[in-house]
């Protein structure tokens, strides 16, 4: 139980996907202009990431390892994740059209969200069992969501500030991301 708690805290804060692993930077920059789209994207990523974690675990341990084609891992994982995103897209189009519209191009872009492939590969590298993989994937997604929502809040507030023209938009977003990454270094060492 304590081990699981450490895994969760570690994935959310200490080894935050965005701030310490620098994975998933493109949606982090792209979908963080408004809080509601950021929240929607976080949920979509949480859903896809958890599912992807579970399915890639099964693929790794019941397909790749038994037939000794571990070297196909990257390609197979990308295929699995891409088809999963298609599935989520179809479901979301029917059940939550507003969210589907709001996410727009970013939903298909989850396919290429390196955080998802990264977390799936990391779970394999760390020799997690099935439960650990699912928990780790979900907690990492929470960490991603935390980073995204925090950042979206800041960017909304930034609209009211007189940022110099040379720094407005992407440059100031990069600088803020850097400062946030520094602040998250404070969590270093909490989980071995």
């Amino acid at each position, binding site marked *: 139980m304590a081990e699981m708690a450490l895994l969760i805290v570690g994935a959310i804060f200490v080894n935050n996907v965005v701030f310490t692993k620098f994975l998933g930077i493109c949606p982090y920059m792209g979908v963080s202009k408004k*809080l509601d789209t950021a929240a929607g994207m976080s949920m979509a990523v949480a859903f896809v990431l958890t599912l992807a974690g579970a399915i890639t675990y099964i693929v790794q341990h019941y397909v790749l390892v038994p037939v000794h084609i571990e070297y196909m891992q990257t390609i197979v994982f990308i295929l699995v994740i891409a088809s999963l995103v298609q599935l989520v897209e179809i479901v979301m189009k029917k059940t939550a059209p507003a969210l589907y519209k709001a996410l727009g191009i970013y939903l298909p872009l989850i396919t290429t969200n390196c955080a998802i492939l990264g977390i799936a590969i990391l779970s394999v590298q760390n020799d997690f069992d099935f439960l650990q993989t699912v928990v780790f994937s979900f907690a990492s997604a929470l960490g991603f969501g935390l980073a995204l*929502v*925090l950042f979206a*809040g*800041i960017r*909304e*507030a*930034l609209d*009211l*500030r*007189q*940022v*110099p023209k040379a*720094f407005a938009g992407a*440059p*100031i977003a990069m*600088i*803020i991301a850097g*400062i*946030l990454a*520094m*602040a*998250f*270094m*404070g*969590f*270093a*060492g*909490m989980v071995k």
Partner: protein
Amino acid sequence: MEVNRLLLMDSSPLGRDGDSTKKIMYTVILTLLPALTVSVWMFGWNAVRVLALTSIFTVAVEALIARFVSYRIDFMDGSALLTGILLAMNVPANAPWWMLLVGALVAVVIGKQVFGGLGQNMFNPALVARVFLLISFPVEMTSWPLPGAVDGTTGATPLGLLKTEGLGALAGTHLTDLALGQVGGSLGEVSALALLLGALVLFYKKYITWEIPVTFIGTVFVIAAVFNGINPQTYAGPLFHIFTGGVFLGALYMATDMVTSPLTFKGKLLFGFGCGFFTMLIRLFGSFPEGVSFAILLMNAVVPLLDKYFPDKRFGMVKNG
């Protein structure tokens, strides 16, 4: 509708007092004098050197920027000087000059001017610089000269000792030493009481309100008391935790920064709680001995969300109205 929301203000009567930004800045600087006096008394000329260098560097950097931008920057409005002094209070007295220059550049350029200057920054400039220095030059930033010791003698702070050696190493440290400032540390970490003395003026002038400092220090106290109560052999007591490190400096002067703290009552309470919580989380479980600067930076990032989701109830306001 969007514009309407952006321009929302409080209803009348709107009071106005004569205090300009400049007056507030220089008043805050004056209230730091008791703490600065203690620092100079403890660390001698080294403290004066650090103070002078950071003050000159921050004002000079701001003056340099003012030359190159099309809008007006009043680099003598006291805000750059205050950032410089707060930065000095966040570094050890034996910090080399180039480190102070890097700190001043980070504080003024990255912490403040890229956001548009005074009143536009989202993070406390002095803390951005401190955290930047701490993770870039960890050795220089953590070899603290001991107060009153022979030149060149350095040692760990009480929090550093607690982290590396355990509670037993602190047997010789008395609480009164901690409160008055007879311990190693950065310039502003030494005397909690002198800081409180200066901050009383700020409370009286209503430049800062009680919510953030009380919840910040209170949260640190309560969390420390709980852990100390569970296992007094491993965890230091609550008074130790509030009097060591930057808790008083952070709670009174850094977290209460008008620009980077929440505007609403509930927002301020949560902000103070978050600062205290993350401070203790890092102190008890992190690899850094001190967490105040990280905690305040983290909470600075949450301020927009706090302001948005915990608004004050205005007179006549209807829920979902």
